[in-house]
């Protein structure tokens, strides 16, 4: 768009700020929300790479029907840690990171409401993640019962070994959960109380609405998982019998508590992605976001409905008929607000003036693939169909169309979109596009084959399979390796551009939103003068491309 390298965007001789040069601050206990945001994003990206390596080992095992790459306990540990890392140490904390960076800027605040708490929330994560990974070094390895950790199988641990993989897994996830709850308190307080003058709820960008909705879900639902895991830890280590069926405990109660959080967790992951689409699509379509209010309210709608859908993960868990029917209807209702969002994105693009830069490619690619993830989600809510494909690769395919093809694509869109704001430099467009096409092709090659595999009855979490499933598995594995390769141009681009990228200027995309009105990177207190907001967001019809009044107007008024 505006970062044609033949034309400098800003003066290259502009002196670098102290903030920009001082990389040590990213290793410090900073209370600046922007530093914490970057800390989150970089740390989670490292975990994403680790989770991705585990995924490629899994795909290497599944390229042939026989079990011949890793032995079965190791395979079980690989998929357990892959799922755990990608959910609890990549997507959810990455969203916390990008929200940390953007929310105060987008609402015109100087920082988060509780900066110290914010720093503590972050610094709980690295030791928790390292603790989780350290279980690979235990004599009997990591947890092996999947990221659901269903009892009683999660209680089957090596005898005489109190510190085992499952124990470490529970402690890590409880710590990560505590961090997320502290973060959620901070986000909700910040969005309610720290908005700039004139920033009414219906002048907030949809990204902020999405972050608010996601963090409300964290507050309401996450304690259920934390509670369940503490009870599981008691069963594992202290001889209690909450979930042991042979001792009159009930493992199904664990499933209720687990999914009460872990289904909304999908929306905790997806809502910020939807918010990213709402920021990127209008900027590159040069149109106001179509149906802004509907899309804003739909974020809350998704959050509310998603609290009441958890049993659709348990249709086959000895669940009575009435409960199956009730949760079939509530699960399907999520399609209404998500449908509103998808229609809004499409209408924003319709009759627009499209600029297909890398963030736009990732956003459109992610939005398009969300349709397949969403449609298969409605299919799964239909009980009779779910009874066939439950726990098959159909679910794995559907889930990855959401968590990778939609959310991770949105995360890449966000990184490219706000990279100039965060670093003050532009990324290399050619490398960005190469990254997009490798990712888009790789992601579809990897995850589409899982849908027909599931329909044919290939069960998830198996390390060997019947030869008739091999064809689709080979395609999925090759796609997985391509996805692994696709990350290389991204890393090269980010590192190279950070060191040598062209200076970006304050608003390279001519985007609306308060974050684009301050310097790149923003100063410690975000704005020289707190802005007064007088117009709705996404004002792409305005030649100023800005929703704030100029500072001189603001000063004259006060």
């Amino acid at each position, binding site marked *: 768009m505006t970062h044609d390298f033949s034309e400098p965007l800003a003066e290259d001789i502009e002196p670098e700020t102290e903030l920009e040069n001082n990389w040590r601050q990213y290793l410090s206990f900073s209370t600046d929300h922007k530093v914490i945001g970057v800390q989150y994003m970089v740390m989670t990206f490292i975990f994403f790479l680790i989770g991705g390596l585990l995924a490629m080992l899994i795909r290497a095992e599944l390229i042939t029907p*026989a079990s*011949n*790459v*890793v*032995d*079965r306990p*190791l395979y079980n540990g690989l998929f357990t840690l892959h799922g755990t890392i990608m959910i609890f140490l990549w997507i959810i904390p990455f969203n916390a990171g990008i929200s940390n960076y953007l929310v105060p800027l987008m609402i015109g605040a100087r920082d988060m409401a509780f900066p110290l708490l914010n720093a503590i929330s972050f610094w709980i994560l690295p030791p928790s993640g390292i603790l989780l990974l350290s279980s690979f070094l235990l004599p*009997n390895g990591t947890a*092996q*019962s999947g990221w659901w950790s*269903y009892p*009683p*199988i999660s209680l089957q641990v090596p005898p005489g070994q109190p510190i085992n993989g499952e124990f470490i897994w529970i402690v890590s996830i409880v710590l990560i959960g505590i961090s997320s709850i502290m973060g959620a308190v901070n986000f909700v307080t910040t969005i309610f109380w720290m908005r700039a003058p004139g920033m009414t709820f219906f002048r907030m960008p949809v990204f902020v609405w999405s972050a608010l909705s996601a963090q409300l879900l964290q507050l309401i639902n996450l304690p259920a998982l934390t509670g369940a895991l503490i009870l599981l830890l008691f069963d594992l280590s202290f001889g209690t019998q909450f979930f042991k069926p042979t001792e009159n405990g009930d*493992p199904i109660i664990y499933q209720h508590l687990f999914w009460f959080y872990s289904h909304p967790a999908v929306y905790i992951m997806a809502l910020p992605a939807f918010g990213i689409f709402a920021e990127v699509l209008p900027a590159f379509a*040069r*149109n*106001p976001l*179509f149906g802004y*209010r*509907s899309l804003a309210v739909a974020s809350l709608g998704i959050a509310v409905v998603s609290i009441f859908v958890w049993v659709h993960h348990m249709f*086959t868990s*000895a669940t009575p*008929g009435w409960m199956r*029917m009730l949760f*079939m209807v509530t699960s399907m209702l999520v*399609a*209404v607000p998500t*449908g*509103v969002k998808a229609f809004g994105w*499409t209408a924003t*693009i*319709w*009759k*627009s*003036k*499209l*600029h*297909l830069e890398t963030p736009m490619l990732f956003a459109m690619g992610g939005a*398009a693939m969300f*349709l397949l993830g969403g*449609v298969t989600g*409605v*299919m799964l*809510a239909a*009980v*009779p*169909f779910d*009874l*066939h494909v*439950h*726990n098959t690769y159909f679910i794995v395919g559907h889930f990855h169309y959401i968590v990778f093809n939609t959310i991770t694509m949105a995360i890449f869109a966000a990184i490219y979109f706000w990279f100039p704001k965060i670093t003050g430099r532009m990324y290399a467009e050619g490398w960005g596009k190469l990254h997009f096409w490798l990712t888009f092709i790789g992601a579809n090659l990897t995850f589409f084959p899982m849908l*027909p595999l599931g329909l*044919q*009855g290939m*069960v998830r*979490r*198996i*390390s060997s399979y019947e030869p008739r499933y091999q064809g689709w598995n080979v395609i999925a594995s090759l796609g997985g390796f391509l996805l692994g390769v696709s990350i290389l141009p991204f890393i090269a681009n980010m590192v190279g551009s950070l060191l040598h990228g062209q200076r970006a200027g304050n608003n390279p995309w001519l985007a609306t939103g308060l974050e684009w009105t301050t310097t790149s990177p923003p100063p410690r207190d975000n704005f020289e003068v707190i802005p007064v907001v007088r117009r709705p967001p*996404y004002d792409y*019809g305005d030649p100023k491309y800005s929703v704030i009044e100029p500072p001189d107007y603001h000063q004259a008024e006060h």
Partner: protein
Amino acid sequence: MLRFLEYLLIAGCIAVLLVVSHWIGHLAYFWMPPEATEEAQKVDSLFSFLTSIGAFIILGLVGMMVYSVIFFRAAKNDYSEGHPSRGDFKLEILWTATPTILVLWIAWQGLNIYQQLDVLGLRQIVHLHTPLEEPAYAAASDDKPKPAAETVEVFVKQWDWTFRYPNNVTSHELHLPVNLRTRLNMHAQDVLHSFYVPEFRLQQYIVPGRNIDLVVTPIRTGEYKLKDALFSGTYFALMDANVRVESLEQYNQWLSTAEHEPNTIKNQAVAEYTQPPKTLFKSNWYTVAPAQEAIANERKVMNDT
């Protein structure tokens, strides 16, 4: 006039989309395994219906995106806006009401077919062992056993399926008479397992401490694979058993011969536990030892079923 032509074009596109979606919905039948039960036919018709609707939505919206990418590209350095419209109240009402009606329609179809499956016997019946709770469950409508011509007891344990037939024959293969309602009375001994035969289109968790009934009516003779669909530990991938649907005469004949012949099917988990295969990476992490004997025999001795 132009506006009229535009509407006509849109109507034409929708008509084409409807035809294509219907065709894709029809193709969906071929993506499924063979239909071996009456239940499978119902599930496939629901899947076809869902695929048609899904294809219409995906093709419609992705089509609009692709059309936009081709025809709405901005000229270089043109940052003016495309259309100034911030919203259209009527349109937003329409696209909120449409998915609402659509999901209610899908839910109605799901409910309808689920009830038909119930008539056919696809419904679990849970009995708790706990004496205090048993009367309450016994009174629940779900707890009335479905009428079935035959009952087979299913015992599942890490990593072994065992089946006990009316004449006390035990086997590691599930034999079912065709066109006859058979009740599977299922018991798990250690962890959660899940009964799943893809050609039957049904799946049901088996929870230790609960007796779970499932009534199936196979309609197609042949050999199928029973799988454990819920992760059950180290040798989970080996946790399957043969299912043979056969005529009543063949079934009765097998029952009488099995009574006199020992069951010799090799347990793959036990074989692998005693002689692990070569793999590139070896962890040697802890695993539960797989069941060595048929559970049904143990349970007969314990008399706890």
